[in-house]
């Protein structure tokens, strides 16, 4: 089983420095792309590989790049790595950055070359102190080796790279809010269209991709589109960093072929449920995905199959709901997070999420009323995509709507018993 992204990552030692990374073939892909391929060829190859964005939305990466105007008229362009990773339950990008920063940087440089951007940013979550130190060091090395800076590999291509650490707000991960944050503004999202590819950072064409997305790029360049597609067991190409948190025996992260089943992930890699705990459901890809339950254990974890099962692959890092944990409390915790992290720009999210949270809290405390469930249903109905300004609130409704579907009796029990049966 090939694990291109994690093959050089080990928890037993510090990450490779530049020399060691080069020894195992690092920066060869960069050399190949910059010296033997045109930017358009890089974009085309990535598009053909069917690499889908690993930040949650799953959009074809090469296609996204192809919308960047490549005429001579727009000299300033930006490339941004979204390393904000603040979706609760998600911790994969941290591992990629702490484990092999050069792989990530190499991916960024190739991607920047593809769209001919001369300035790049890593938007790093503030809490990732270690990743920040390692990235700065790796960037220094890359500058010194001539992989960054002026006239890279002598082909006349220039690229600057900056590390920006955030000051905390989940919404900064939303790619247009991230642009505002980088501009030193309030991180409220922007409307699309215009897409960042046309009017992004400082009004210039910009590409934002997830860390994991970038980490895939060198391998696609080296091994080709077909190889990448063949890595997968499912309907989407490549491998995926999957993770589990919650009451399993061995919570953690694994790089597996795209399309591994939920059962395999939990039982084989996660070691099964912890002793004394039973599986009730899981959010397959972070806090803003719908619950999957026992009947879904054989669902393949790729974008298409998870969607068919009524959820989203999201970030591929799963949070397990066990039988000792109150589903109402669980969802309340999530909605508390989302209500807090609403940017306050659009009405449904700003007002709807706190209402949802208060309703859940009152149910959890045994103060709920039967009509509260209607209110929750109403929110899940109207905080959907398109009704709100960005995807935060629709994401917030995913665990709630599925919890109301799969664990409705737990909600009703709280209301009829006027207490939380788990407390």
């Amino acid at each position, binding site marked *: 089983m090939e694990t291109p992204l994690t093959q050089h990552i080990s928890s037993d030692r510090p990450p490779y420095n530049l020399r060691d990374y080069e020894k195992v073939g690092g920066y060869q892909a960069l050399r190949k792309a910059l010296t033997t391929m045109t930017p358009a060829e890089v974009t085309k190859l990535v598009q053909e590989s069917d690499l889908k964005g690993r930040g949650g939305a799953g959009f074809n990466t090469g296609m996204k790049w192809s919308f960047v105007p490549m005429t001579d008229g727009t000299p300033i362009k930006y490339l941004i790595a979204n390393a904000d990773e603040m979706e609760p339950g998600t911790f994969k990008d941290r591992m990629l950055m702490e484990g092999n920063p050069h792989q990530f940087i190499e991916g960024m440089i190739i991607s920047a070359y593809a769209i001919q951007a001369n300035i790049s940013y890593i938007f790093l979550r503030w809490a990732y102190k270690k990743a920040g130190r390692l990235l700065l060091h790796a960037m220094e090395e890359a500058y010194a080796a001539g992989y960054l800076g002026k006239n890279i590999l002598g082909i006349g291509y220039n690229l600057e790279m900056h590390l920006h650490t955030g000051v905390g707000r989940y919404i900064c991960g939303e790619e247009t809010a991230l642009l505002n944050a980088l501009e030193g503004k309030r991180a409220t999202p922007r*409307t699309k269209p*215009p897409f960042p590819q*046309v009017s992004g950072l400082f009004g210039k064409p910009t590409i934002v991709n997830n860390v994991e997305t970038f980490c895939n790029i060198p391998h696609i360049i080296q091994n080709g589109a077909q190889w990448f597609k063949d890595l997968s067991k499912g309907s989407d190409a490549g491998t995926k960093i999957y993770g589990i948190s919650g009451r399993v025996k061995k919570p953690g992260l694994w790089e597996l072929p795209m399309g591994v089943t939920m059962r395999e992930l939990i039982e084989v890699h996660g070691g099964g449920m912890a002793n004394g705990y039973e599986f009730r459901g899981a959010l397959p890809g972070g806090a803003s995905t719908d619950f999957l339950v026992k009947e879904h254990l054989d669902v393949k974890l790729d974008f298409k199959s998870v969607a068919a099962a009524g959820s989203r692959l999201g970030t591929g890092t799963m949070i397990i709901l066990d039988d000792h944990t109150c589903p109402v409390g669980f969802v309340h915790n999530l909605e508390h997070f989302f209500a807090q992290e609403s*940017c*306050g720009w659009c009405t449904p999210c*700003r007002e709807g*999420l706190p209402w949802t949270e208060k309703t859940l809290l009152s149910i959890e405390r045994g103060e709920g009323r039967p009509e509260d469930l209607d209110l929750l249903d109403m929110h899940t109905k109207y905080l959907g995509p398109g009704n*709100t*300004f960005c995807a935060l609130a629709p994401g917030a409704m995913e665990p709630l709507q599925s919890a109301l579907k799969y664990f409705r009796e737990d909600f009703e029990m709280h209301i009829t018993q006027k207490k939380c049966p788990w407390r």
Partner: protein
Amino acid sequence: MPLAVIIMAIIYIDKKPFEAKAGKNLLETCLTLGFNLPYFCWHPAMGSVGACRQCAVRLYKDENDTTGRLVMSCMEGIRDNMYVSLDDPVARDFRSQNMEWLMTNHPHDCAVCDEGGSCHLQDMTVMTGHSYRRFRYPKRTYKNQYLGPFINHEMNRCIQCYRCVRFYKDYAGGKDLDVFAAHDHVYFGREKDGILENEFSGNLAEVCPTGVFTDKTLKQHYTRKWDMTMAPSICQHCSLGCNIIAGERYGELRQITSRYNSEVNGYFICDRGRFGYEFVNDVTRIQQPLIRNGNTGQSLFENLKTVLSAGKMIGIGSPRATLEANFALRQLVGKQNFYQGIPEHEACLIQTVLETSNGGHVHTPSLSETEQADVVLILGEDPTNSAPRLALALRQAVRKKPLDNASQANIPAWHDAALRELIQDEKGELFVAYPIETKLDELAAGTFRAAPDDIARLGFAIADCLSDAAPIPLRMDDHVLETARNIAAVLQKAERPLIVSGTSLHNVDVIKAAFNIALALQTDQRKAALCFTLPECNSVGLGMMHAPSLDTAMEDVDADTIVILENDLYRRGAKQAIDGFLAKFKNIIVLDHLHHATTGKATILLPVATFAEGEGTLVNNEGRAQRFFQVFMPKNENIRESWRWLDEFHQFCQGKMPDELNELDHLLEELVTVMPQFKGVETVAPPSGFRINGQRIPREPHRFSGRTSMQANVAVSEPKPPEDTDSPLSYTMEGYRGIPPAPLIPFYWSPGWNSGQSLHKYQIEVGGPLHGGDPGKRLFHEDLVSKAGFQDNIPCAFKPHNGETVFVPVSHIFGSDELSVYSPSVTSRTPKPYVMIGRQDAARLQVTEGDLLNVRIGGVAMDLPVKGSDALPEGLAGIPFNLPSMPGLSWPCKGTLTLLKP
């Protein structure tokens, strides 16, 4: 100017086809088409941002799509063959749900809220059908802030539509209001309590859809909109002639709001205009005629008869009185005895402006046209202080040029957020030449600080760079020439160049230079726009009468009687000179509404109506004649419009009896016969006999309450409403309820739309002209009247003289206007007298901020504290213009500065 091609599209709303304009958004289109669609964050002048989510509709892919999706109509551009549904149950339900969300934390305090009855939030709540609030948790509460004398803050009512910051910060360039915190704690206000600094803060009260930001001055004598008697009016406080609605209750003027005119002020007015109205209510208003040293045994008219029929009489007009009043005075005293009540120097400035503007050589832009300029040069003006609404327009102009790039990126003009993100800090080119810092400097590509004469020289030099025929200023400094060349190069490339200048510096050469630039820019394809600001609300109207100045009257007049019309001569010159002049007359008849130094000299003092108590016509800086209407009957029958008094005297001198007296319409007919340059003013508004279906236009909303009881303290029977013989407006709530002709709109109201947002029902299309055309009639010639060459007589460069200081008048939005300072709110924002000096002079005199300097100008001496300026060139000193607490000066002036030993 490239012609915008308007492409029409067919869109289907709930299956019915409609014609719509491509390039507009769906929300404004629906409103234009007459649909009632709720919204909050969108504003016609500020565009869309899609924040409130209130304007949701269902959009279908095509005719056969039955699912569709909810979209925000404000964020959807019009496309041909668009299928949308407003009536769709899900869309309706979502809108009503959105309203419930907005209302979860709203205090529902309508009964005690100033916005009640004219509240957009109330209207939209009713429109969406939301009635029962299911939220049962404690509401969020906020602390309110003290925001100064104009605006009241009540944050709990906020629905977070973001309009306030978008107006104050993005549109008006304010710095001290913003949004703080996040999620459901967002707060709109200042960092700390304090006065809102921006000159347009009052618009917050109109822009805010609920009662967060309200008019604090209205609060002092609060009246609901539906209880107000209102009339269309014109602002009296500068030369731009912004259109306003004035509202009254119990004989007191209570509120000024902006009245839309797509060619003048659009949706907004400045704070001087909004809050400067209190002079109408001032306790020192002249209430009764006063006869001094007269025959006490005789009545007023007997006294007047004696005075008016004996001896020679001269009349002194006024730039703040109406055309009608000045004309009536001229008729009374005779053409050769009528003088403009302004000093020679000012008269000369105004004549120069008129010659250049009215000759058809250059284009005089309307206020809204100034917003369209792509390059702006301000030559010797500070619009923020002398013509504030113009400064707001120029702020928008500076955004226009980058917008041209935006249209290339396919971002429509209404998409405000996307435009700002694309444009970032990019600006169109604005150049400011003025002796001191101005607020618009922050937007300027270049500033030039110099003495007025040097500013004129810069202007001449720019014109010289643009045209070989323009005269060449001699002995120019290299760096000034360089500046001139740079500015000329940018102007040359502009498609819609605009030159702004005016009279505030009291320098006629500045005006001539501005004219030369505009003329030099003229090509067959391009007529440069030249916009002048003038001192007062009817400076142009008075100027167009071509009468001699006050100085002429003072120099060579010998008469028994002087009639002074609404004019405090002591503001126009040194006290000694005015004293001497007035001493010449046996009879001094003064007509005015407020006491001042000149009324103190009157032998006969007549109380006159303010703009709120009478009708009249004013001509603004672009030569637009505009009519204002009586808002309420004066307190007593002695208070009458000046023109009525004067016209009566006139008739009376001719032996006519009061019952045959003239009406306003006749006076205007006479005016255009006698002075054909005013042809057109008689058509500025429908005549007094105008009726729709036999009905008048009511000044009172149909819910006006207390009519039968409001005077119960006087008499219990309902008084007969006053009758208005001068206009088609009535003093009742009965009458024509439809949309009246634009000059007669007394207030905005439409079924379901009680707030001012109902305005779109009065417009042909959202943001466009009013039904029947915008009010006002331009009197200036657009076609060439006579062939004019370039102006010459270029002044010499300014050289500081040892021991002699040249004073420049510094205009203040709050303080320099005669009438608005009677408002306590405006007074509290008025600066204390000061003398402003530059760095070099401060060093030479060894003074710092706050030290007292003795200022001597002619016979006038004052001790004034020093205010430092980084910009003011050596040898100049600034004196606040026309502050009420300062003695009258005759501008331009020179004098001395000496340090007062402590």
